[in-house]
């Protein structure tokens, strides 16, 4: 569990300003959703937060120390899941422990038994224990994304970042993946920041919301402040149809989806 401070971050790619002086801070254990249309800077923000990209100006601090490079205490989940298709779900989960294992041991899969149990445990958390020996490439999109989550959990991070983790999934799988994410964050006391573009999913799972538009922070607030006006602010006048997705029957028991 760590806190995150985003302090006056600006990121320019040549002439494009992807982020413009964005500042906010996230206390320990909060579940933050980052919203914005395509190109608003969501990915850039998350990549700055885990050190894959460094800001042009400003800095990001985790528990007070600036983030310069990818760190083992910050785990990331990607839209294209980026798991290794060749390997089994189990081996993929196990790569989460690479930072605690030497090269040779990791090559021969001679990790400590503890790590192996941790991987199985993480696969159990995302409901894939039975498929653990299946090759990742042969799994469905939703399953692959869950393997990505398992990998992030095995990493034992303090912070969990996820960039549009459900963008390429069908509605059913999206719900499922979001549920696993929130559950994992809660159980393991993780500070989490997740970017999404489906407003209904955001409303359903989010606690706190960060709205970006053209690289600028246009909203920062909690569930009760997250009104229809805010959505208009973030998304402009464009037709919001399609950003809401059909909810499944199965989650009728969960909180109602606002449309």
């Amino acid at each position, binding site marked *: 569990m760590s806190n995150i401070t985003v302090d006056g971050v600006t990121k320019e790619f040549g002439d494009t300003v992807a982020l413009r002086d964005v500042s906010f801070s996230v206390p320990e254990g909060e579940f933050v959703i980052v919203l914005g249309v395509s190109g608003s800077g969501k990915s850039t923000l998350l990549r700055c937060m885990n050190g894959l990209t460094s800001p042009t100006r400003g800095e990001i601090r985790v528990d007070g120390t600036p983030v310069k490079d*990818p760190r083992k205490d910050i785990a990331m989940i990607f839209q294209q899941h980026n798991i290794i298709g*060749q390997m089994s779900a189990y081996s993929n989960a196990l790569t989460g422990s690479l930072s605690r294992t030497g090269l040779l041991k990791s090559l021969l899969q001679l990790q400590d038994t503890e790590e192996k149990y941790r991987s199985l445990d993480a696969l159990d958390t995302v409901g894939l224990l039975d498929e653990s020996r299946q090759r990742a490439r042969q799994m469905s999109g939703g399953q692959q994304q869950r393997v990505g989550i398992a990998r992030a959990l095995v990493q034992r991070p303090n912070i969990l970042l996820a960039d549009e983790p459900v963008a390429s999934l069908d509605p059913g799988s999206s719900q499922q993946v979001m549920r696993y994410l929130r559950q994992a964050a809660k159980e393991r006391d993780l500070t989490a920041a997740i970017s999404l573009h489906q407003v209904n999913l955001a409303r359903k799972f989010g606690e706190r919301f960060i709205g970006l538009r053209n690289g600028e922070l246009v909203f920062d607030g909690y569930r009760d402040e997250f009104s229809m006006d805010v959505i208009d602010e973030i998304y402009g006048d464009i037709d919001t149809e399609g950003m809401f997705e059909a909810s499944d029957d199965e989650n009728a028991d969960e909180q109602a989806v606002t449309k």
Partner: protein
Amino acid sequence: MRRGRRIRWLLTGLGITVVLFFFYNALYTTELFQADLPRYFPAFLDALTDYFPFLDFSAFPFVDPGGFGQYWSFIQERNLIYNSSADLTDPSTGGPFALFGVAGLTLAMGFAGTILGFPLALLFGILGSERVMPFPFNFLFRGVMSSIRAIPALVWALIYVPLGGLGPATAVLAIATDTVGNLGRLYTDELEEVEDGPIEAMRTTGASRPQTIVFGMLSQVTTPFIAWTLYIFEINVRIAVTLGIIGGGGLGLILSVQQKLFNFTNMMATILVIIVLIISVEMFSQRVRSRLRADESPEGLLTLLLGFPRRMAESLTK
């Protein structure tokens, strides 16, 4: 519009003229013009009936089945493709390769050269990739691979003669060197197409740089790497035949001696064995590659390997 067409015609005509001009000059330079081929044609036709003893122009249907027997008796007598007295377990007599007689030696040359060249090909291939080695340095390795490829395997064999004389061992070293250049280059090219995603994912887990390379990059390319290695193995067996001709041993050597003895029937028998060997290796490698593409589990591959001799026999007999 008219003008556009005229320019186009002019350019096409010019292009064709230039190619024909060079072709004409090339024919002259290589003495094909001076060679008065028709005059030697009778000699070549003579040789043809030696090459194909089953052709018998004296009587309809111009085919004398006994001719095939001549091929077979040479193949059998010299154990070109099968050695019944091979001891599979004793490497000093060639082990399993000896089972295939002389063809086995050629096969062994291609195989040993491929495996021997593999580690360096892998190393150079990886270090030639810009993602592993920063820009000016990776070109060092690419340059070495380009130079190696620019030198044909036969020339490598000549370069190595001071090391091991001219024999199967030299041939293997030459093939191995060639493999470093060719296979390494294929590896580098493959690595250029690797996706960034898994690499970034490994970085975010806090993996070390070597771990990122192995898990993020190499794991993406194991299948194509195996496929390319098989492809190069195929090519290396061909090269082994060629190196045999200049003294490397195996089928090539037999071929060159029979050619020097003007024994064209035996020469053609050897060529038939070469065809069978190379087409078998090609079929084998293509099968494995198509299985790999189809994303088979390793168990399936094993079955394929074990089942190969049977299928080969089937396809040859039908």
